[in-house]
């Protein structure tokens, strides 16, 4: 069964046979959307929601031919899916508050996370952003969970006009602003001690949004998990197609720019010519990563 919940956004429900492992929030499936060689590859879709233990839901946006074909599936059709795959969202037991940030279709995996967090009685703040009101999804469903989402649309057609990252920043400034350290935090500072104690940010959306969320999380020394999307062929770590660049680990981290003394403390040759670029695979090492691991400019 499926329905178009907003223009170009579809929600498909699939009955899962009992022998299939139940997916967790952030995990995904490789879905064969066509027949024969059209299209050739499976499409990765994250778990959106599990309903009554046997119904799997994907929420997706029709973007190309593959998702277009998927949107034509009718009730009673069989779907060939591989999974659940990947490493999903980590929920530490000592967490007090989860801040979820969704951009457009990025809400798909975050919804099941919100459900799980609610089950664990962890406080959830949910920020939803999109280009326009048609890109703002799951509002009512979140309210049914007892979550009042903060909403922004870039064109002002719903919620506040602007970017969801601006909403997030305002929230953190208001609620956690007094804890903000007096100096700017450099890119090497990400200790176990979180300035925003007991809070974590979970984000999914377009890469520029995730980059900004990661920067904001860094400013507030708040742990941040991001769910990434990349084109993939296999979904199981074999093709090595879905590489994401990871920050190069240096044995002697350069001093932050504000360090006193020395010659600025940055060894330029090392930064420009890192000895080893390291890639991780979105399908196997992710799709959820610690934001601080990712080289956002890579």
């Amino acid at each position, binding site marked *: 069964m499926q329905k178009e919940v907003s223009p170009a956004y579809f929600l498909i429900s699939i009955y899962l046979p009992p022998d299939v492992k139940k997916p967790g929030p952030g995990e995904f499936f490789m879905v064969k959307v066509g027949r024969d060689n059209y299209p050739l590859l499976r499409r990765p879709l994250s778990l959106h929601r599990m309903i009554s233990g046997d119904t799997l839901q994907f929420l997706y946006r029709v973007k190309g031919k593959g998702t277009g074909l998927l949107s034509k599936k009718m009730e009673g059709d069989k779907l060939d899916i591989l999974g659940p795959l990947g490493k999903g969202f980590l929920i530490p037991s000592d967490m007090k508050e989860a801040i979820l940030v969704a951009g457009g279709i990025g809400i798909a995996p975050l919804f099941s996370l919100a459900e799980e967090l609610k089950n664990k009685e962890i406080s959830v703040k949910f920020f939803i952003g999109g280009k326009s009101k048609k890109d703002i999804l799951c509002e009512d469903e979140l309210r049914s969970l007892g979550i009042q989402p903060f909403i922004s649309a870039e064109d002002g057609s719903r919620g506040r006009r602007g970017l969801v990252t601006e909403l997030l920043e305002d929230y953190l400034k208001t609620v956690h602003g007094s804890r903000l350290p007096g100096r700017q935090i450099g890119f090497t500072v990400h200790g176990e001690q979180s300035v925003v104690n007991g809070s974590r940010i979970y984000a999914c959306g377009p890469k520029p949004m995730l980059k900004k969320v990661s920067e904001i999380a860094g400013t507030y020394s708040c742990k941040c998990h991001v769910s990434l999307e990349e084109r993939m062929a296999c979904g199981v770590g074999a093709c090595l197609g879905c590489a*994401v660049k990871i920050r190069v680990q240096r044995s002697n981290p350069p001093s932050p720019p504000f360090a006193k003394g020395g010659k600025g403390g940055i060894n330029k040759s090392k930064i420009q010519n890192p000895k080893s670029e390291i890639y991780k695979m979105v399908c196997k090492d992710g799709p959820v990563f610690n934001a601080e691991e990712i080289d956002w400019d890579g």
Partner: protein
Amino acid sequence: MADLRVNIGSMELKNPVMVASGTFGYGEEYSPYIDLNSLGAVVTKGISFHPIDGNPPPRIWETPSGLLNSIGLQNVGVKKFIKEKLPYLKGFDTRVIVNIFGTTISEYVKVAVRLSETPGIDAIEVNISCPNVKKGGMVFGTDSKSTKKVVSALKKVCSLPLLVKLSPNVTDITEFAMIAEGEGADAVSLINTILGMAIDIETRKPRLANITGGLSGPAIRPVALRMVWQVAKTVKIPVIGMGGISSAEDAIEFILAGATAIATGTANFYNPKTAYEIVNGLDGYLNEKGINDIKGLIGGMNA
């Protein structure tokens, strides 16, 4: 049950179905989805002496019935392969063929020597045909002198059966097959991917960060089949056919064209059970046709 055994040099395979290098990881990645014991052989991801990080993303792009990739030979290096990847593969009743490459002949030799000294490896496949790296790979496989040098150097140090994987990005692939045979290769495998590219017309950027990539999948099958046929009638050593094979019917075409064994590649990505299905399909076909030994099918095209 028909006899599916075939020989590649001194190595006997229980069936002629292998999985192609770069499309099956190190085996472990696919073991939840296909019984590795059902395969004639597993060919590993290409291994170099030092670990290689690979090319920047985006690395793949789907095309009609095909896949463009430019992974850039990312691999863990020979040391880690032997320590961490090989032990797992050794636990299965299938042949282990290790694909190797280097940026210089001495690097090829160093990897081959290390692997020859390691128990549990049945054969080495030499990659002289990767289109996605600046040094090594296809540089060796598209120049006849380099092909001769690398195969001859490896044959001197390598006691294991040596398979040479040929590039289709040449004017006459039979020339390279003959060189490999002349230098003592035990078999040739073909084809590697065909050099291709794609452009995003909105951003005007290439779809792959490396601009060009290797095309694989059903789109290249007729080209691969033609080349297998050309090579099989030129050389006496066994030919391992690959390029877009995704069903038993495809595999039979390659065998009829002269392939002694075949490998599934891109099909593993969209149907991890492909190789297993082909083994069963071959048996079914032979039984239906009343052929009791698959060797009777090799090169059996009526032309």
